[in-house]
Each structure stands twice: as C-alpha cells, then as structure tokens.
C-alpha cells in the first residue's frame, strides 16, 4: 500500500470510530438526559429517577469512558498503520 492509500485507510477508520463514539455521546446526554428524560423518570434506581440520574450523573461517567475508549482504539490503530511513535 502506498503512503497515501495508507493514510486514507487510517483516516477512514478513525472517522468510523469518531462517529460511533459521538453517537453514544449524543444518546446518553441529549437522548437519556433530555429528550427521553420523562419516560426514563418512571424507572427508579435507588433514590434516583433514571432520566434525572443520566442528566446529572450518568452522562458524565459515560463521557469519561468514551474518551478512554477512543484513546485505546486510536493507539491500536496507530500501531496497525505504523503511525505509532
């Protein structure tokens, strides 16, 4: 594979990861925390209504996890395409 093709393939996979992770990012915050809050609020876990919990706790935990997943995925991808340093 030429340099340029290699770079293109790398970029394509990167975009795929980013889109996938941003979908989850959107679903937990705007989805669970805002749009579907009322529906989720009918479910209760401990003292928390679920929609409220996503808005004030859950989405933030997921954000942190998302970045670390991205770090791992990209470190692997860098190795696969020989861009690791």
């Amino acid at each position: 594979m030429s340099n340029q093709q290699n770079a293109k393939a790398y970029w394509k996979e990167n975009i795929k990861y980013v889109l996938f992770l941003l979908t989850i990012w959107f679903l937990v915050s705007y989805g669970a925390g805002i749009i579907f809050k009322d529906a989720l609020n009918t479910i209760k876990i401990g003292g928390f209504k679920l929609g409220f919990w996503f808005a004030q706790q859950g989405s933030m935990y997921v954000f942190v996890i998302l970045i670390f997943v991205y770090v791992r995925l990209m470190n692997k991808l860098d190795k696969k395409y020989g861009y690791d340093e």
Partner: protein
Amino acid sequence: MMNSVLIEPIGVQMWTYILVGLSFSLYIGIAIWSRASSTKEFYVAGGGVSPWANGMATAADWMSAASFISMAGIISFAGYDGAVYLMGWTGGYVLLALLLAPYLRKFGKFTVPDFIGDRYYSKTARIVAVICALLVSFTYVAGQMRGVGIVFSRFLEVDITTGVIIGMLIVLFYAVLGGMKGITYTQVAQYCVLIFAFMVPAIFISIQMTGNPIPQLGFGSELSDGSGTYLLDKLDGLSTELGFAEYTEGSKSLIDVFAITLALMVGTAGLPHVIVRFFTVKRVKDARKSAGIALLLIVILYTTAPAVAVFARTNLIETVSNKPYNKVPEWFKKWETTGLITFTDKNNDGLIQYVANKEQNELVVDRDIMVLANPEIAKLPNWVIALVAAGGLAAALSTAAGLLLVISSSVSHDLIKKIINPKISDKSELIAARLSAVGAVCVAGYFGINPPGFVAAVVALAFGLAAASFFPAIVLGIFYKKMNKEGAIAGMIVGITAMLLYMLKFKFGIFDGGKTAVAGLKGDWWFGISPEGFGTIAMILNFIVSIVIMKFTKAPPKDVQEIVENIRIPSGTGEASSH
C-alpha cells in the same frame, strides 16, 4: 480530647490565614522553580509536559471560581435544569478529544489564531481569530478576578479591592515569571488544593445526611434519620409544598435545555485557553490521553456538585422554613451582614416564609452562599470552612492565570510577531510576552475592582462566541479539506455577529429600550431558545454560511490541502514551533 478543653480551639479566621498562606507559598515556590527562559517555554511550557500533569493543569484551568463557588448553588436552585451546566461543561471534552486536540497538537503551533491563520492562509482570518480570542478571554478573566476579590473579602475580612490587588500580585508573579511553564506546574498544585477542598465538606455532609461517604451515591440514598425516605423524594416533597417546581423535574423547555447544553459543550471545546493546553504535551497520543485525564479529574468535582446542591437545598429549607427569625443559627446572622441573605418579615409573624410565590416570599438567598456556607450550615469543624476559602482561591487563580497567558500570547505572538514585526528576536518576543501579561493583569484587575454590571451575562456570551466562531472554523479546517478562507472568514463573522445581535436584543434589550424590556421579549425568542442557548443556532449558521460560500469560491491552494493531510496523521509530531 483533654487538650481541646484547655486550649482555645483555632478559629476560622486563623485557619484561613494558615491554609491560604501555605497554599500561596507553595504556588510562589513552584513559580520560582519553573521560570521560563524562551518563548517556547513561555507559550507552551517547552512542549514536554506529561499527560498527567497536563490533565491536572487543564482541570484546574477549566474549573474556575464559577465551577467551585457558584455551580452547586445554581443547581440547588435550578434542580434538574442545572444539568445543562453539568453536561455542557463536561461533554465538550469529548468533542475536544475526538475532534480537536490531537490534530491541533500535530499542527504544532503556539496559539489558536496560529492555526486559523495558517490553515486559512490569510491575515484577515488570523486577525478575526485574535479579536475573538481576546474578547472571550477578557470577559472570562474579569469574572475570575472578581471571584478572587469575593473570597478574600469574605474570609479574610479585607475589602474587595484589596482582595483583587493581592490576587493580581500573586498571578502576576507566576504568570510573568514562568509563563505557561510556571502556570502549568502551579495549576497542578492548585488542582490538588481545590479538589481536596471541595470533596472534604461534601463527604462529611453526605455521611451526616445519608450515612454514605460517597456523595455521588449519597444523594440517591435513604436519609439516615431512620425514616426510610429517599433524600431526593423528600426534597421533591419539600419543594412542591413551598410552591417550587419538583426538584428533579425543572422548569425550562425541552428545546431550550437542549440548545443551552449544546452551546456550552461546543463553546467549551472552542475556548482558546482550554485548547492551548494541548499544545504543551509531547505527542499526539499524549494529547488524547491527557484530554481523558482532564475530564476524569473534572468529573470528580462535577458529579459531586449536584450532590452538594441537594444536601444544601434540603438543609437550607429544613433550617429556615417556617422557623422563628429570632431563633436562626449563627451562620444565618453572619451571612445576613454580608447582604447575601436577606429577610423581610412581610406578614409580621416572626416566622421565615420561604416560598415560590414572590409576594409572600420573605427570604432571598444568594446562590453563591450554598457552597461557601454549606460547611457552617452542616456544623463542620473550623478547618474545613477555611479549606473552602483556599480551594475557591485556587480555582479562581488557576483559571485567571490560564486566561492571562492566552491574552499575552495573542498580543506578543499573534499580533506583534506574526503581523506587526515578524523579524522580532526570540528574546524581544519574550519581553513583549511578559509585558503583555503585565498589561493583561492590570486590565483584568481593573474589571475585577469595577465589574461591569453584566459579568454573568458576558460569561455566557463568551461560550456563545466560542461556539459561533472557533469551533466550526477549526472542525472544518481539519475534517473538510476543501474548506477555504472565504468560507471560514464569512462563517466566523456571520456566526459572531448573529450571536452578538441576539445577545444585545434579548439579554440587554438594546433595541427595545433597555434591560427592563428583556422579560417582555421572551415570547419572541427564535424557536423558544434563550440567549444562553443561541450559540447553538449561531454555530449552525456558521457551518451553513462557510459551506455555501466555499461552494462558490476557489479551492484552497495545494500546499494547504497537504497541511490538512499531514495533521490527520499522528506520527512525526515534531515540536511546537513558531515557524
């Protein structure tokens, strides 16, 4: 235990002097140890900061007096609606890590206008970016200096002006001497101070109220009074009894909550003082990792804040609602003298009526008190109360320093070096950078002492502006190779102008006869979106304008397209350079 009977316990005042004094000596010590000797050290700390150190510094940089002092208070009065700040100010880091930080690090320059200017091969674009960076940072820093002043005046009983001047001198010392290098390592120390100061009272109160030492779990637990009621259920009950909206429901419209959250997220990712922190690490993969570490460290405070909000709100209602005024605890009287709590006995029954109905309500509580007075309300030991003062100062100083650096590098690097006098030597540029830092501190101090009446409104504007200008320009610059200077410049100008006009109309009432008209204009909000959330619309406008204009103008030159291809590949980072 015998000793405490014999020896007078140390008072809050003394503890404050001790803790603030100790933390300040630490910052000054670090500043002397990490002096900057070149522009590269001054702007990006030499580019060799470890991901952990950068993560801690970013977290301290990010968490300002507003996060530390005001946020929990705002949430405790807004209930569910407070989530806009929680999600908005953390979710932006996901965008930052996935869409901006790694590429900007690979690009390897010193400032955000550097990127805009080079990527869009245009001086105009650079100047627009410099103006945005200065506007955003100045409005932000004025609020920080004010925060420093308030903490000093309240805990050390000096007046606000003296407080601001003390704060200015401290920041001046380590920002001017150490530049980014000094700031980075003092911020590491400040993170430790502020997170400790925020967590200790939260943990104490969580144990008191629910028996659970983890505040994040505590506010979803049952009360420890043996009643078997969940804390949140109790607070919902208390709120509706007094006529407020149910705490866990909130009162803003869905679309507005959506728009504000998105504007804050995108604004966060577009703030120059946050972005520039990622220029300081060694490699692209370090930039990704340190974004994750920064968010982790921020989320520790941000997930605790809503718990503090619930504890404080419940405590407040239980302590004062329908209680006789002449039997209120000591802290109530103390904060009354500062004017942050006011009580007027409208129906002369000697009881405190705290209700949603404005006609009948007799108690006004400033939201900033909720964090500051929380340890006193919960009767915690004196050293914990003093610790909160040291934490608030750490939060305000670390953010102020980060912003001042952006201002000074915008002037010395983007204006003087890149536009006015490109032949300036490294040595003279360093002197220019230091002088601009001094100038910036003085201006910030002035605004701290004479705050414009609209600081809070302008801080919201800062996010809107960043969302409407930088974010689309940078994202398109990385992900859309064909984006050209015409598109980007037009987009930034339209985005910012739309944001400013909407703000002026709906926040300041400029076109309808001043601030008094603002409330009446609510019905005219576009799509029911408040000025705080309009950054979202302005950002979308920017994207649309950029792409449409680009379609009708000529493609960027070959070498610029090659730059874009190059920043997409993480290897061969090289060091941050001015060339």
